[in-house]
């Protein structure tokens, strides 16, 4: 898949208002040549899945700094599978303790990016993985 064709949704689920990071990621995605959609703040998982479907994105990226990533990602998994988006690349970033990284991966979030992750690492990851369906 060529870079031009990768379409990414960056979304902010829950009440957490910290959007500095999410907006930085949106700009990094745009700069990398990805077609990028940003959800805006305070979206429910249902809103996000609907937006992902409408926009027909290849990548669903969640930014969560409130500490609610486990319940939100569990909910997202359920909804994404129901919506037939299991083959898309799901990634999540934010304040994520080490102990939650494997459980998030097991939920299907193949990229888990703690706050100190460098932008180019996220871009490279998406470029390499956006076209691989989940096993």
């Amino acid at each position, binding site marked *: 898949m060529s870079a031009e064709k990768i379409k990414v949704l960056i979304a902010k689920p*829950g*009440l*957490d*208002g*910290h*959007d*500095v990071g999410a*907006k*930085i990621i*949106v*700009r*990094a995605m*745009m700069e990398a040549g990805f077609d990028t959609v*940003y959800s*805006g*703040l*305070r979206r429910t998982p249902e809103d996000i899945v609907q937006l992902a479907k409408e926009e027909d994105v290849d990548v669903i990226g969640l930014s969560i700094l*409130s*500490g*609610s990533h486990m*319940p939100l990602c569990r909910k997202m998994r359920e909804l994404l599978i129901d919506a037939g988006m299991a083959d898309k690349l799901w990634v999540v970033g934010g*304040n*994520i*303790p*080490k*102990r939650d990284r494997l459980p998030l991966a097991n939920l299907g979030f193949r990229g888990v990016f*703690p*706050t*100190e992750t*460098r*932008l*180019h690492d996220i871009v490279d990851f998406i470029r390499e993985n956006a076209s691989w369906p989940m096993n």
Partner: protein
Amino acid sequence: MADELNKVINESGIEIKTLYTPEDIEKSGGVDDSRSGEPPFTRGIHAEMYRKRPFTMRQYAGFANATETNKRFQYLIANGQTGLNVAFDLATQCGYDSDAPEAFGEVGRVGMAVDTLKDFEIAFDGIDLEKITVSLTINGTAAILIAMYLAMAEKRGYDLANLRGTAQNDILKEFIGRGTWIFPVEPSVKLVADTIEYCAKNAPKYSPVSVCGYHIRESGSTPAEEMGYAFSIAKAYTDLALERGMDIDAFAGRLSFNFNIFGNLFEQVAKFRAGRRHWAKIVLDGYGAKNPKSGWLRMIAGGGGFGLTIEQPENNIMRGAYYALVGALSGAQTMALCCYDEAYTIPTPKAQRLSLRTMQLLIEEIGLADTVDPLGGSYYIETLTNEMEDKIVEAMDWVDRQGGIVKAVSDGVIQAKVSEHAFRRQKDLESGAQRKVGVNCYVDEDDEVPDVDLHPYDEDGGRVQNEALKEVRKSRDQTEVDRSLDVLLDDASSDRNVMPALIAAVKAYASVGEMTKILGDVYGRYDEPIRF
């Protein structure tokens, strides 16, 4: 060539010379020989500043429910803290009751959960509201929580005419950074004007608004923009209050500000000095206030969160000490300091105490309270103060060119500008163009980033809060609640000041969610402009 390589430009865009002389002060606008306590207050709003009264230390705290928060408050007061800075959970900040579906998993997570007046009665139980000034970090639901605070104080027998305290209540900056908006921009600003008007008439010593450059700076702006945008915001609230026929001197003196302290020490100190001078010009010359106190830039300077790193976190202890030095040199009335562990957890009591001690030792051991504005008169600081004022004016002019702050926020242009800066700032950190110790230089091979340590979510706490709310709903006089909510609906629909109705509703133990819903039915909900 060598000069090119060594060029130093501060974050606000001012080129820094190798050496400053009296000529530089002259060229940049001349010597400001005003004294502290005299307009334009460049050196400080009070004549004696910290000599008479050191800055108030007010660490941000509050979590879980009212009972737990009360315990933490008592602990901080016992340790010498002289003010409280209350944190609320996201449900409270966004206007949802603890039992609302939107609040699921959020009750008490990042601050205290507040549903009704009952929670305030418990949280402030045993705390002398005359000795300890309370600052409410609340914005979207600020009008409701101010109503709650005033009602609680009144019930406990305090005279509102003498009640001091502060609410953050700066909704415009929430649209730019921080994000706890609820209603569209215009009615949101109208609510702020309601609180200003109500407090000026009924609780004249209460500070209903603390305009925050702080979060705009955290979100990506330069120090000069932080101050310039804050002034544009403060002017928007002021203009609305004036449109209602209020006298500038009836409220301007109660406006306060909140600014950030990370970054270059000299640039920060110059920012505060320039800001003080410029705000005085705006209020005294621009708005024609008669009372010099109306032109005071009263402020909390603190935090520094963006400057702290999760890499080599112990470095944050040193950073915090330098930031506190900036705060002390800035002439702030109040200081709060981020804790070294904040990049990865909610601060432990030990980290909280360390921040408090950092500020205390500046006063007790290092001599920061001995004389006013100790850097005043430095060729560098005086020149930079003049140049920073020009940059602040530039930032305000940019806002004016966008059609004013309300339009700039509604259109999303200011959010886009600030987030573009944040992106550049991040890239500079990653490329090393902006040096950051332990992050892009002086990194050790075997450094390990500390694990994020989140307070586990207390499901029990959520349940206890919900039961308490249920209990209040059962025991309150429902007829009185309904009646008071009807009045609120009527006042909001007729564009009257909603504060009297909110206070009546609060006293009837109406909940934050119920009152927010009524206001939302009238005002609608904010639709965030997505703009990059």
